[in-house]
């Protein structure tokens, strides 16, 4: 019974720490899977809290009783009665510790099973490939031209089970959105799967949780849960090639893109740029954030990022691009038009 109430009293504490945009917190579950993990979190929290209180109580009692003069040595008692007492006290303390740890272990295993089991049918499949230092998101489809490729922002429909297939292009990364599910390591050359189902529409932030190099700390992503019809509209939009520029400035921006370093790494479907080193930019303007959830997708941030990414994220794979001011303006006008 206490285990059940522990979760409820924990919710009150969680409300004291609201989830602001751009932050993630294990105390705000958005899926049944993360609710299991949150429940385990609070159970372990209250068990360790009780242990902590007992410890403090014991220390206080011992501190209040022991008024031993430092000069006189402690009297050594040598009676069988005292020996038996001591053995009993130490033995029971060890037993309580072992039992507590065992209970926690069993609860962890049970929670892992509950969060990991696949129980729903007709899921949508999303492939996530970790790169240094961004996430490639692919919605695979048997028809190649129906495959959506994007980066860092994972759109999912609310109430539909989602199966995530993981992989990595370079080193080990770890996919961790605390409001979605537990951590999953992305291993190069090895694909694993897990699943979740988001109940409430919203934006849930996530983060790489396995040190993967210089910009590990700024390797974020977000899971954007939206109603099914909105998700389908988004998917249809993503399937289209990049729209042709409509203004002279944007036309010039496309020429800048195709004649500078951009096309060595990025893809814009519908143009000659088709390299797969960096994120797909076909629908860049439809994303909320750039640079793996580091900067807002605004004109200013985009300009700063293109000119000198090494200043914002030192060591990042993108090179500085010293463009002439009007070239840069045109390029940004073009990129901002890629809805």
């Amino acid at each position, binding site marked *: 019974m206490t285990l059940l109430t522990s979760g409820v009293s924990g919710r009150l504490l969680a409300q004291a720490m609201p989830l602001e945009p751009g932050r993630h917190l294990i105390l705000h579950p958005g899926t049944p899977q993360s609710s299991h993990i949150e429940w385990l979190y609070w159970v372990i929290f209250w068990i360790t809290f009780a242990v902590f209180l007992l410890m403090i109580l014991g220390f206080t009692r011992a501190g209040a009783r022991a008024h031993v003069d430092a000069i006189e040595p402690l009297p050594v008692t040598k009676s069988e009665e005292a020996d038996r007492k001591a053995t009993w006290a130490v033995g029971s303390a060890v037993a309580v510790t072992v039992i507590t740890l065992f209970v926690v272990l069993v609860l962890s295993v049970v929670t892992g099973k509950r969060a990991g089991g696949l129980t729903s049918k007709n899921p949508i499949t999303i492939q996530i490939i970790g790169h240094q230092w961004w996430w490639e998101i692919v919605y695979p489809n048997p028809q190649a031209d129906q495959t959506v490729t994007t980066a860092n922002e994972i759109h999912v429909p609310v109430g539909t089970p989602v199966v995530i297939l993981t992989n990595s292009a370079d080193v080990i990364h770890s996919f961790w959105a605390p409001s979605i599910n537990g951590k999953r390591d992305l291993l190069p050359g090895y694909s694993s799967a897990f699943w979740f189902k988001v109940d409430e529409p919203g934006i849930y932030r996530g983060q790489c949780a396995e040190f993967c190099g*210089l910009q590990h700390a700024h390797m974020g992503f977000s899971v954007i849960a939206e109603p099914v019809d909105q998700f389908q509209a988004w998917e249809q939009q993503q399937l289209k090639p990049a729209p042709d520029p409509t203004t002279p400035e944007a036309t010039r921006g496309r020429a800048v893109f195709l*004649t*500078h*370093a951009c*096309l*060595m*790494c990025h893809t814009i479907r519908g143009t000659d740029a088709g*390299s797969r*080193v960096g994120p797909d930019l076909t629908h860049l303007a439809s994303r909320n954030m750039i640079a793996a959830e580091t900067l807002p997708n605004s004109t200013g941030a985009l300009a700063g990022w293109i000119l000198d990414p*090494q*200043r914002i994220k*030192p*060591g990042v794979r993108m*090179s*500085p*691009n010293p463009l002439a001011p009007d070239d840069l303006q045109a390029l940004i006008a073009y990129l901002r038009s890629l809805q």
Partner: protein
Amino acid sequence: MLRKIKFVLLAATLIFLVSCKREDRILRQPPPSDETFNTVQISGLNPGANPIPTPPPSNMYEESAYAVSEGQKLYEQYNCVGCHAHGGGGIGPPLMDNNWIYGSEPGNVFATILQGRPNGMPSFRNRIPEYQAWELAAYVRSMSGLLPKGVSPSRSDEMNVKPSEFQTPKQPPTGITGQPEQPK
């Protein structure tokens, strides 16, 4: 005695500091100027009698293991492997032997990458930043053992049962900038 120990400790620290240089990560430093690469001669012909010797520019990226491994990564990503393979050549000439058609100096390789060469080598000017061309040049030179062992990448990024291309013993360059090739 104590003084001796102090001296040894100081010397050891200094050696450590010096040896750490190869791990320096050059993230925000200007590359060597490209004004100089044209001074590297790839032809033995000179107008007049005596050519004025010009020292070839050095490549600061050849002192950093980080920069050379960046070059290794770019070599793959910019599809140099498509023609040159992992040094063994294919459509393009091999890069791990001692034959340098357009010169073996860092400036020669840099110019080859940025300007392109006849018969298929494309020009990467304005496509890749200059510092990446210098990193690539450093990596290309490491493939024939022209860089110190401490700087060259110790293993290939591919799973490979054969020894990697960096285990190639040093190939003294022949061709125009090197010694004339010996008949076999």
